[in-house]
């Protein structure tokens, strides 16, 4: 499974919605995730990828789309 697949699994589990938006579409604007789901996504990313996401990186724009999450995770690995 590549990183994007692993991220997709996390997002589906948190949102409990199997219909993911496109990789460059906002996860929030269409209501796929609400604001309170984002901390859960971050915690799951840390666990799945074995990374530590510092408070200073908790900028919602870094987690706006699947592609942005993939870029961020790739840079932290």
């Amino acid at each position, binding site marked *: 499974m590549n990183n994007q697949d692993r991220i997709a699994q996390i997002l589906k589990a948190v949102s409990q919605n199997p219909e993911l938006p496109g990789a460059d579409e906002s996860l*929030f604007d269409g209501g796929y995730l609400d*604001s*309170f789901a*984002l*901390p859960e996504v*971050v915690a799951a990313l840390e666990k799945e990828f074995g990374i530590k996401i510092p*408070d200073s990186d*908790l*900028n*919602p724009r870094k987690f706006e789309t699947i592609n942005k999450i993939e870029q961020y995770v790739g840079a932290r690995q």
Partner: protein
Amino acid sequence: MASIAGFGSYLPARVVTNAELAAQLDCKPEWILEVSGIEERRYAASDEDVVAMGVAAARNCLDRAQCPAADIRLLIVSSASSPQRFPGPAAAIAAQLGLGETPAIDIPVASAGSLFGLALASHLAASGGPVLVVATEKMSQAIELLPDQRNTAILFGDGAGACLVREGAGLLRIAGRELGSDGTFASDLRLPLAGPVEMNGRSVIMQATRKIPRAILAVLERSGVPPADVQAFVMHQANQNLMDRVAKGVGAPADRFYSNIRRYGNTSSASMLIAAAEWWTGAALSPGAPVCFAAFGAGFHWGAILAITE
């Protein structure tokens, strides 16, 4: 060691329901409740300012603590919604309470203001005598009831809270403090001089859901108190969903987090002391019970205080 000797509160009479707001904000009342946990909030009258509400809460606190105003040696006032740049409301509140030339200082740090005030008071009461902490907010003046402002406009209400801190025995002995500030995201929650409140909700939630539990766990660990032993958590009433996330982050039952946000909304710095005043009225804890106060707000500023019932 300093103790909290009493709490007080004041809430304006006017109740503003979700139905009333929804009509102005072009949304449904049910949506407001779902995203915030708020059913109604109070709005101050046009001639009711942060000074008047602060004085009312202070008097309520002094009455409940059976403490004459003349005994107060320092007044700390938290308000982020004062209508003028200076002076803040502290001096006027002191004057109306008849505190004479007792020093009165303002700490305009918004939602965490009463927690910071309580922490400061617990340091200063030991050397300087009784400290009265007042948090008073007229947040209805800091919002605009327009559809494009609905995400923030639904949250806020008006009110004031107070607590008295002094050396020696009281209701709750202050046993530990953990405070923090980080200006990295200062622009994500602010009230510009021209208003209204500007909030990046996602950023606030991401930071708060990490920083509040971390502060709580830090102050508990230093005192050797497991989270499960804490009998009550009284925190800034920002959003019910946030309080539920904090409970999960701390690993404590959600029903130990006192909540009155359904009735009063988010009254910024006043909320923690309004909640404390209500909670204490109905609390039936044995001596030695750990209680945790916590708050997070603009700045960002945040923290937690551990207190033990006496």
